[in-house]
């Protein structure tokens, strides 16, 4: 009987989390457009529903009814799977992120995390790398030269930044002594947030994270003005929308990871855990939107240089220094 209960629990948790997550992702697009509008002396969407609140819905319906085109040159199978890979990885990354403590429902203690696994961080890094395959394959399979260029850039960027991304989180592992995200949150609950103990790691993770989710100033694979949208140039209809959803889901997930690793996760006074979690996640998302409104795009080779010559040595040094400080008992 216990097995059935836990199965039901897992299924219900999955469905609820995916639905809620998709809802937040949809409204993240609206938030981005509204905030960018504010930054750019315009209104942003305000026609569909009050304050444009139905805009994400309208966008979804619109892209659903668009003609779905598969170019003749395209490698059909890969072309169709690619957006799926992106969305799949972006969503499944969220599985290990704890978004609250435990609640008691129908006499059962329920942990507010889908998969409370001990290799959480490794799982995250692995999936993050996998996500780029969607971009690379999508660009390559569409049989368009701009798409190929976008895909190549995505591949190069992935290799340059995954390393730094991995190194940036090592400090948190040292501090928490665990790869489990729940334990990392617990370690911050008892002590200080890791952003205080390990500030440079936070900055490096944010930078590498921006590169990972392909946002300005690292939006190389897309780079609208150079490659005319890059990897998703040939995509239309729901496939394009899937890429878009994946992008925002990825952004949401990265913000959630930043929250968990550096900002104390769901912990906070007075308010319940999930509320704190959302507040922190949206603070990080606000930063992502804000910097998009401020910065120009870096050039491809500068990104490579920055990744290998600046970010990699600095993150390495950071790991060494943090390890030394922990060993000496300073932090």
């Amino acid at each position, binding site marked *: 009987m216990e097995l059935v209960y836990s199965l039901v629990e897992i299924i219900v948790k999955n469905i609820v989390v995916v639905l809620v997550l998709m809802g937040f992702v949809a409204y993240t697009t609206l938030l981005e457009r509204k905030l*960018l509008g504010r930054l750019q002396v315009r209104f942003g969407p305000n026609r569909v529903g009050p304050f444009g609140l139905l805009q994400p819905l309208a966008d979804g319906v619109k892209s659903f009814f668009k003609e779905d085109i598969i170019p003749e040159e395209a490698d059909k199978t890969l072309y169709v799977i690619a957006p799926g890979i992106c969305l799949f990885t972006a969503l499944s990354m969220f599985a290990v992120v704890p978004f609250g403590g435990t609640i008691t429902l129908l006499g059962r203690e329920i942990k507010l995390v889908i998969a409370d696994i001990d290799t959480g961080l490794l799982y995250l890094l692995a999936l993050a790398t996998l996500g780029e395959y969607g971009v690379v394959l999508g660009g390559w399979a569409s049989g368009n*030269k*701009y798409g190929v260029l976008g895909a190549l850039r995505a591949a190069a960027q992935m290799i340059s930044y995954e390393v730094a991304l991995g190194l940036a989180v090592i400090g948190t592992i040292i501090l928490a002594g665990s790869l489990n995200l729940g334990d990392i949150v617990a370690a911050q609950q008892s002590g200080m947030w890791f952003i205080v103990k390990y500030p440079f790691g936070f900055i490096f993770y944010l930078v590498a994270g921006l590169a990972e989710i392909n946002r300005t*100033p690292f939006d190389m694979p897309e780079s609208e003005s150079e490659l*005319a949208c890059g990897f998703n140039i040939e995509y239309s209809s729901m496939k394009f929308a899937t890429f878009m959803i994946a992008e925002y889901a990825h952004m949401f997930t990265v913000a959630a990871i930043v929250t968990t690793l550096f900002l104390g996760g769901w912990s906070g006074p007075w308010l319940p855990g999930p509320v704190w979690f959302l507040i922190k996640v949206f603070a990080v998302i606000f930063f992502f939107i804000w910097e998009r409104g401020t910065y*120009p*795009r870096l050039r491809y*080779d500068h990104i490579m240089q920055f990744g290998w010559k600046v970010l990699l040595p600095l993150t390495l040094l950071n790991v060494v220094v943090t390890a030394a400080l922990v060993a000496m008992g300073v932090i």
Partner: protein
Amino acid sequence: MAETKYMTINMGPQHPATHGVLRVVLELDGETIVKSTPHIGYLHRGIEKIMENRTYQQAQPLTDRLDYTSGMSNNLAYCLAVEKLLGIEIPKRAQYIRVMLSELQRIAAHLLWVSTHALDMGAMTVLFYGFRERESCLKVLETVSGARLMPDYIRFGGLREELPDGFIGMARELIDDLPRRIDEYETLLTENVIWKRRLKGVCPLSAEDAIGYGVTGPMLRASGVNYDVRKAYPYSSYEEFDFEIPLGTEGDIYDRYIVRLKEMRQSVRIVRQSIERLPDGPIKADAPEYVPPEKDEVARDMAALIRHFKIMAGGIRPPRGEAYASIESSKGELGFFIVSDGTEKPYRVKIRPPSLLNLGSISKMIQGSLVADVVAAIGSADIVLGEIDK
């Protein structure tokens, strides 16, 4: 042995960063450009030929459609050429207003450039800031002519009509506001590390090359050559204004950006001077043969009515000869060469569009650079295809 093959990629005519319908065929080795060939002509309307089949007045609206970001300047260049043919003297007031309007137009055009160039570089916000100010510039120009892009307000012999009431106040308000706005763009861009890395030392053009390709305007001055038609061959009383010619040193894209921003500040200065020193007097030359009378005069005076009818229906007949007049438009030296055979239609009109010659240097500039730089280089040349294809 694997054979190395270059990828040929077609940039444009439908591409967000080619500023209209430019097509550049690039041969790429990875992302490095091996060879580039710009193709033009997608917007060819045969303006020069059409002008030869129109009377002098009818030909003028076509000039608005050359560089559609600076209609006033185009009108001015055309009118100067025709006035040279006619040999008429323009009253001081008209000259000052012409200067004022073409400088406002220059500001509007440069604002458009800053905005779109920043967008090409991925800095989306500057686009909206720039367009906000350009909008207020266009509003001021609109009160004068009733049109935002195709003013057709400067006519040979002077101006179409007197400035509307309240114009001076509007213009003053605008130029009082502008320097602060330009500071805003500078905050966002000038010292921005990413912006600098994207533009500094990218696609430089040496002074020799620039002169060799016939490059003019801010691009030439960014390469350190002090040539500005306003100073070198002053027209429309530019010699009476106090302003500087900003120069660059490296000739790279960053210098072009700096030069254009400084030029906007200088233009603000010129507009302010022309407002302060605006003389009173007529706005049309005293040349009854060529210049139509005022509208209210036509309604009252029989002779004026006949004169109006003669000029409008029959056109004007400049004496046999040829004339070349050039101005410093926002893009560079814009020249009109007109040959008259004594009839009411020009025998030949040749336009020297600055964008066309500036575009010529693109291939040289982007040789060996990256795809991302092509966008930056095309942007920095500030081309308008309406002027290139004519």
